[in-house]
């Protein structure tokens, strides 16, 4: 492959620092190529210019959700973001994901995100065991469709970083965890819908969402946590008035 415009370089600003060193930015000139993602840009810096730069990735194809960063102020999966999509003149600004603690440079600590996933009862409550046959499920059933809508979440935390409610409200479970809860609530196989509604009705629950929709706007997989959370609000309200969902 060939260099896009021979010898052209991009001006890349990267946020550096960790819990115990102050945050600062550094700027690098990175050669531009035809096929180049933001992850490639970050990797180039670490591999060629500054070996101490820290970032995180694994699958490099948008499946693991570990490479998300703020790119020009927008949370994105860097392995699937072509440079041409974000280049601002010849500049790019890269920072760690918002709304999470930074471990070092571009690597955020995702533990709070997953702690909340669990706190939202984001796990299956079995109705059958491995000794039993697999239950038939009608793929067209309304519930199944509602559950399927959010199933492909890769827990990349992009929605969590996009949401201003998370910023202001550290207890808020956030869009991904709540979407997972809604998926489970609609799963005919799940045994404990009440536990799910209890988990999303507390201090940090679904009722804190202001429907600002940044989650849905920025989810790289085109999922719709906004509507899933509305579903939870509906289900909890129905239960509040004494009707089962």
């Amino acid at each position, binding site marked *: *492959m060939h260099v896009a415009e021979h010898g052209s370089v991009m001006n890349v600003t990267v946020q550096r620092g960790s819990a115990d060193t102050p945050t600062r930015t550094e700027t690098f000139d990175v050669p531009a190529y*035809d*096929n180049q993602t933001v992850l490639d840009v970050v990797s180039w810096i670490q591999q060629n210019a500054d070996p101490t730069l820290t970032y995180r990735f694994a699958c490099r*194809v948008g*499946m693991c959700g570990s490479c998300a960063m703020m790119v020009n102020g927008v949370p994105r999966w860097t392995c699937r973001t072509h440079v041409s999509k974000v280049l601002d003149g010849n500049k790019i600004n890269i920072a760690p994901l918002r709304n999470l603690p930074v471990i070092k440079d571009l690597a955020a600590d995702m533990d709070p995100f997953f702690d909340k996933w669990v706190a939202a009862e984001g796990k299956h409550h079995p109705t059958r065991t491995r000794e039993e046959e697999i239950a038939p499920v009608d793929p067209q059933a309304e519930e199944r469709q509602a559950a399927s809508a959010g199933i492909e979440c890769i827990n990349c935390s992009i929605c969590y970083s996009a949401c201003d409610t998370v910023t202001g409200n550290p207890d808020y479970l956030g869009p991904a965890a709540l979407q997972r809860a809604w998926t489970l609530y609609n799963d005919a196989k799940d045994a404990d819908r009440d536990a799910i509604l209890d988990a999303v009705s507390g201090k940090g629950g679904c009722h804190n969402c202001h429907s600002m929709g940044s989650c849905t706007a920025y989810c790289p997989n085109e999922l719709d946590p906004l509507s899933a959370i509305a579903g939870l609000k509906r289900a909890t309200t129905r239960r509040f008035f004494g009707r089962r969902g």
Partner: protein
Amino acid sequence: MFSTCDIDRHDTDILILGTGGAGMFAALHAMQTAPEGTKVTIAVKGLIGKCGCTRMVQGGYNVALGNGDSVERHFMDTIEGGKWLPDQDMAWRLCEQAVVRIRELENEIGCFFDRNADGSLHQKAFAGQTADRTVHKGDLTGIEIINRLMEQVLSRPVEKLQEHRAIGLIPTKDGSALAGVLMIDMRTGKFRFVRAKTVLMATGGGPTMYKYHTPSGDKTMDGLAMALRAGLPLRDMEMVQFHPTGLLAGDHTRMTGTVLEEGLRGAGGQLVNHAGQRFMFDYDAKGERATRDVVSRGIYAEMRKNNNPDQEGVFISMAHLGPENVVKKFKGMVKRCADCGFDLAGGLVEVVPTAHYFMGGVVVDVDTRTAMEGLYVAGEDAGGAHGSNRLGGNGVANSTVYGGIAGDVMGADIRGMGALRDPDETVLEAELTRACHPLTRDPALVLPLRKQLQEAMWDDVGVMRTEAGLNHGLKRIAEISEELMEVGVAADSLAFNLTWHDWLNMRSLCDISEVITKAALARNNSRGAHYREDFPEPGAMIDSYFTVAQQKGDTVEVTREDVKFTIVKPGETILPDGEPDTLVAAQ
């Protein structure tokens, strides 16, 4: 630099390395079977559930669930696909337990698998299968399996050591058993030694020493390199599976090598060479629909014919199927290509064979036990179940089945084990020194050496092999390996220092590259993924042997062992009389 006094010492009962299908299932099962109060710890190079290849599984999970299909048929396909090299007891257990494991995944773990209109599980056939057997969730099966496993693990009281990289298996002083594992807490850069009564190694192999490769970036053969140093025997190490269609986008991008899914060819996708001509029918009557190894060799041969550094690969073309149809049918793949700047639906996308899966691994028994007491191995790190070729869909079945077994077995074995074992401090010190080696040299770039190694493996130990090429490769690997020892990493900031880990990755890759090459030299025939141009014949099936590599002093020695046909002999079948050869309607 560091001394063993600087090592943080930590104890647990059951230690699991890796959080792919094998590691996660082991953790869940260990908690079910171990006595109350047993401490289970997971250590992983990345974040729990967010690294490794199980998450990247696209096609699906092989399991015989009736409708004409049977465990026997699954078993026969596995043996024949592996060209009679698989350990038959392991392959049998894989096929038999997959049935239980899929029910566990759906019923207890909560996976969503695609359904037929009547509500039953949808199953399809990968190349090399004689029944519609592969259970899936769209073409993102791995995400579904790993996410559901991850939730279960995260919501249980397991000790989590994330971004902890295992670097050495430390035996007891008399060498009879494993005492624990030395690791680096990557976030702080500090060493941590974890003692455990039982350790499962499930670090997932990963042939990322090839110029083009599919596995996730965290997989660099660390587990096998540790096992090699610990003196354990490794089998089938010449068996590297290439996927025929990896994306080729230049060597400056991490996208290069990633998989364009098998289904593209199944649906009628055409491969054309630099001159715009289809070529697969020159190599096989099934054309583009031939098995992975055949198509990979076809593409490789075309590339070699063209031999043009500016236009290396061949092209996959889908446009004749109607771009709108392609977009509809392969939405995810089209979007992925588009994100990277390629038009899969309407244009040509350049592809190359890409190293995908490693059939070789540590010699284990059907209970995942190894030659070393206290050490268990499961998943892609373990050898034997697939022989010379892994069927599509058998990889994730293997890791989940044997991970679960490992958990059960460790949970039971631990009852008979007394106190934690003390490590051999000299081995501990040697491993520490080894990891610190680059910190004592002048800093230099690691990347150029990684590229050199990847070129060497691709050229000389790749899709097609010859004795001369392999020997040449061996020389190149030795040179690169030596050069690596002179490449330093700045020692002033070891916290989350990726470059130090790049160096350690290279160390593991160099060590295992040598073993692959030596094992390839030891096999004078062509079976499955291993193709010798100087020995193109497979040899008599009844005389099948597998290779076993082991570190002896300073060198790696490779021997051959006869395959034991414990269940079925070549030329025979365990299918009942009168069963059809295949249940899959010809496409």
